[in-house]
């Protein structure tokens, strides 16, 4: 927990000293590795571990994007705020320390979860770039936003495929009608809409930025809202 607290501090101070974002990421990665070693499994069950992983993924993906944006300080400051907020939320959530049910001990589950959170992180980076576009109107941000969404969409689709394979092996069906699956479909259709809308001039610029921001709000509801409020195979 000390490592997580230190990474939270690093993210906060990254608002003034940007390189501290990298230190925060290293500390958070060390925390995730130590949790994995302690539990003897991939530490990606329950809000505590998954949100820590999400924060680390956002920080990790923001680094390459940080090299491409013109106003790097503003971008990294926004990322620092987001990662610090998620890390704080992770620290406040109860850690899931019990052994995994046998059904979750599979490569397909691990890939499904890792890819899902990596895609969420990229959608988060796209939302940050979208908010920067609204402030600065720099077309570079729009291009980077598209790239983040496209790669995120690819990883999200891959996560759904791995989830389908896992569900087929575990329960004999690749699709289960639960609120989580419906919200996952909403997310997938939403980003399909965004990737297609980009081809129409009317949607470029401000509307595209708003789409990225709203998209991340749907991501957060799909992840946290559905898992906490609705009964499904993905409930916490």
């Amino acid at each position, binding site marked *: 927990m000390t490592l997580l607290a230190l990474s939270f501090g690093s993210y906060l101070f990254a608002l003034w000293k940007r390189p501290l974002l990298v230190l925060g990421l290293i500390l958070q990665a060390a925390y995730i590795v130590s949790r994995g070693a302690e539990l003897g499994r991939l530490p990606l069950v329950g809000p505590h571990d998954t949100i820590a992983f999400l924060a680390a993924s956002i920080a990790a993906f923001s680094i390459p994007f940080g090299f491409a944006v013109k106003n790097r300080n503003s971008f990294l400051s926004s990322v620092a705020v987001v990662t610090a907020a998620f890390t704080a939320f992770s620290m406040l959530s109860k850690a899931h320390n*019990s*052994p995994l*049910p*046998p*059904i979750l*001990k*599979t490569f*397909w589950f691990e890939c499904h979860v890792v890819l899902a959170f990596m895609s969420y992180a990229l959608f988060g980076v796209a939302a940050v770039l979208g908010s920067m576009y609204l402030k600065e109107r720099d077309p570079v941000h729009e291009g980077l936003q598209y*790239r983040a969404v*496209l*790669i995120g*969409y*690819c990883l999200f*689709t*891959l996560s*759904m*495929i791995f989830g*389908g*394979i*896992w569900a*087929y*092996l*575990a*329960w*004999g*069906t*690749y*699709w*289960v*009608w639960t*609120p989580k699956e*419906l*919200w996952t*479909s*909403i997310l997938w*259709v*939403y980003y*399909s*809409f965004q990737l*297609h*809308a980009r*081809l*129409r001039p009317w949607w470029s610029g401000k509307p595209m930025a708003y789409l990225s921001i709203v998209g991340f709000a749907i991501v957060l509801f799909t992840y946290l809202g559905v898992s906490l409020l*609705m*009964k499904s195979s993905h409930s916490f």
Partner: protein
Amino acid sequence: MTGEDTGEGDRLYLPPSPSSARGEGINSMKILRYILNFFLSLNTTLWFLGLLLILFFAGAFIMPGNRAFQQLHSIPLFDWIRKQPVKDIWWLLGIIGVLAVIAVNTIFCSVDSIIRKRKVTHWLLLIAPQIIHTGFIFMLLAHLLSAFGAYQKTAEVRAGTVLKISEGTFLIVDDIDINVDYYGYITAWTVDVTYTKDNQVLQTNSIMPNKPSVFQGFNINVKNIRPDPDKAALLQMNREPGAFWALTGGILFIIGIVILIVLKRKIDK
């Protein structure tokens, strides 16, 4: 649904009708042209994706509070739909209708794109969105096949239980083995089964977590298991006719996106 390469607006395939022509032939040509324009348009894609989102949103709030949806897994979707009142499933019917329009839209746009841009230099860039679209169509086909022909039955079993699969064919539960750790958590389990036909052993299998037994196109999984008071398991027999198409569609979809990402990166450089 249109891909990266069809953002130039709507195209007409049919030539305009001669002004001198009259009668029903002209009208049917106009209607045909209107239908073609409709299905070749990116606006159709966007409007119907938007409509699909609204219907999914509605369903996401209606479904959790409705008990009827708990039985949705036990019978094929279309059989289930026939038994439900429209007021509960209007959104699901809407989703099916909208997906049908999007599927036709996807096929029309992909064919149109290939015809129009067949001479481009970056043929991979042309073909990548069409691979994605083909994957999407296969995924829809998978859901359609499963909606018609999925099958699911459950049965509680113990060692020695005999289940009839079909006339003369039986599943015999040989043994149930459950590992429980010091704290009482189940860490592993195995259910040994034998299939027989006319008293001849056809196949023996061990069902384990994420390792179902496959027999004559059926998947036999353990849905639930309990060590006390006596070892018992809830076996689930499934048939998913869409599984192969879903996987094929998923693989094609990913191949298409990866090609698109790699080529876009190269072109940007």
